[in-house]
């Protein structure tokens, strides 16, 4: 998954920290996106997902660290010309009509593909004379997406783009998005709560808890590396056969111990069995572990 056209990562986040008063919304947060990959950013509410996206879009000035888009350090707005950002609430001027909203997009952007915007609006079946404030949630999302995609971004940041959409609208938006990704090869970072969406749409995974990344990687690799081990009820000493630092989470019942480990384990003791975890099991384990650490 190397991109021969661009030397640097499409988006690189380097040790950024964002403080609001005494509270750190982000701290020591680092990751980078693979060119052309669709990456899921997963985390509980308040983990800092929206904050890191807003910072990448130039809406926030991080207290620490830096963010680079295609090798250029992000400064305050305007957004990097190759970056598109769709906020979770899809802000649009509610009083204007759809056609005026497209005109506004054209007037706010140096690079604007009007034909593509028209295509997307037509595909969404939007009435150009309808006022934006009267559009349904799905229609509003598709109009907002048309505005972002008409910028022809190379890097697309989507903050929970499918939240609050009914199943049909969700499917339509997913299809629009994936068509665009396939056609242009753009790099996408998408935050989401819905693990089903991730498995379906994304290639890479970032798990964020309490303002920092606790797991990152290609989803297939992440799935291949992790194992769920089930064995008899044992205490910590009973897990001595596991390599040090490999345990992600241990769950104990009266007569059974379930362990998620982050690497293949050698021959198992008698009474233990291994299986492949689902992506959901892995993500939830990392969220719980991060949550416990964050609580300390």
């Amino acid at each position, binding site marked *: 998954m190397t991109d021969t056209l661009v030397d640097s990562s499409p988006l690189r986040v380097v040790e950024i920290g964002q403080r609001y008063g005494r509270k750190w919304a982000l701290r020591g947060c680092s990751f980078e996106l693979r060119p052309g990959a669709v990456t899921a950013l997963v985390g509980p509410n308040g983990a800092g997902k929206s904050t890191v996206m807003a910072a990448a879009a130039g809406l926030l000035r991080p207290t620490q660290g830096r963010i680079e888009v295609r090798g250029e350090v992000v400064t305050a707005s305007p957004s990097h010309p190759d970056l598109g950002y769709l906020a979770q609430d899809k802000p649009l001027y509610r009083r204007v009509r759809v056609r005026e909203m497209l005109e506004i997009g054209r007037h706010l952007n140096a690079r604007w593909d009007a034909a593509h915007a028209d295509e997307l609006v037509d595909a969404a079946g939007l009435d150009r004379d309808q006022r934006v404030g009267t559009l349904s949630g799905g229609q509003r999302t598709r109009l907002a997406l048309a505005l972002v995609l008409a910028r022809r971004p190379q890097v697309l940041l989507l903050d929970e783009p499918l939240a609050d959409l009914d199943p049909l609208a969700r499917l339509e938006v997913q299809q629009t998005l994936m068509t665009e990704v*396939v056609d242009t090869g753009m790099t996408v970072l998408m935050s989401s709560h819905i693990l089903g969406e991730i498995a379906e749409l994304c290639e890479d995974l970032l798990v964020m808890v309490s303002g920092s990344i606790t797991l990152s990687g290609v989803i297939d690799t992440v799935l291949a590396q992790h194992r769920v081990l089930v064995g008899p009820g044992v205490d910590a000493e009973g897990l001595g056969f596991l390599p040090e630092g490999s345990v992600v989470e241990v769950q104990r019942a009266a007569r059974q111990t379930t362990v998620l480990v982050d690497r293949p384990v050698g021959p198992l003791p008698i009474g233990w069995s291994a299986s492949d975890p689902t992506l959901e099991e892995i993500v939830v384990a990392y969220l719980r572990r991060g949550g416990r650490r964050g609580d300390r």
Partner: protein
Amino acid sequence: MANRHEAAHGTATRSTASRHEVQPVLSGRGPRGMWWVAWRQHRVQVMVALVVMVVVAIGLLVFQLVLVGRLHAAGCTVLTDENQCNARLFPLVASAYDEGTWRILRAVLVATPVVLGVFLGAPLFPREFDQRTEVLALTQSVGRLRWWATKIAVVGVPLVAGLLGLGFLTQWCDGTTWFTARGAMDDGTFQVRSIMPAAFGLLALAIAVTAGIVVRSLVGSLVAGLIAAAGVVVLLAFPLRSHLLPTSRDITPVDAVAASPTAMPDPVGAYDPGSLYLASGLLDANGDPISFNAISALCDPSMPPMPEGNPDQQEMDSYNDKYNKAFDECRRDNGITRNYIDYVPASMLWPMRGVVTGICVLLAALFLAAGAFRLRAAPRHSR
């Protein structure tokens, strides 16, 4: 990995050719297109403000025509001084000048710059914050500073231009009769003529814009903007302006001015009706102003006693003569022999306009800079 995309996209496949960078499509008009966007956003407010100014201008013209008619009807000339106007008819003209509608019109002229400045400035940013459309605007090709400056300019330029027109129209209207042409520095006149409405409007706009950025709610910024703008403009336009320039003091011997030493002095010396009157009274031996109460306290012990019982008119007249003579003597004995009048000379009209306008522009720049800094230093997002 592509399987996930194909599953979502049906039969779509990612071809090598499609991975090449998209060539820029240059049909966009940003970031200069921000002018169009800002005008599209705020044109209704700007039009309403211009309509209000036109209505006020029409009111001004109509009233001036009425006044000219009354001057003619009173047998007075329109452009020469009041000495040519029949003294018997003068009160008729004066009543026209003082009647309620004229006072209301002057109050409207004084209030218009502040009200319109706040009306245009306060909602400029809170509406964006409320609908989060600043997130949309600032994640396109428009920088924060351009976004801020363009929005302010789109409402500010028509406001200042309109108020300049209104100020010079007021000046012209006032100049059409000798009666309204007087007192260019008087309260209620200085503030509404020439460049002054534009200066006050600009200051009110700047205060309201920054109130909107700080308060972030529409109603809150309207209220805060109106209170702050009215407070600052009124302070500067009324009490403070007379302290901004050197004042003149004319001093004359008491006896040369007033028959009675207790009478207020008439305007004397270089003072003319175009000046801004500040204060007048008597000076003590050291040349400092002294109040009549202070003189009374000083001289009371040497005053003749009041006639006892029920004095008739003759006794009272005699007493008053004695009192005045004794008071006069006491005053002279204490060195209180001179009147003074303090004023800003009429020749200082344009310097005063210049200084007050300069302060308005400076304060407006400071308020705007504070707002810009706030936008730059504390950008927010909702989550």
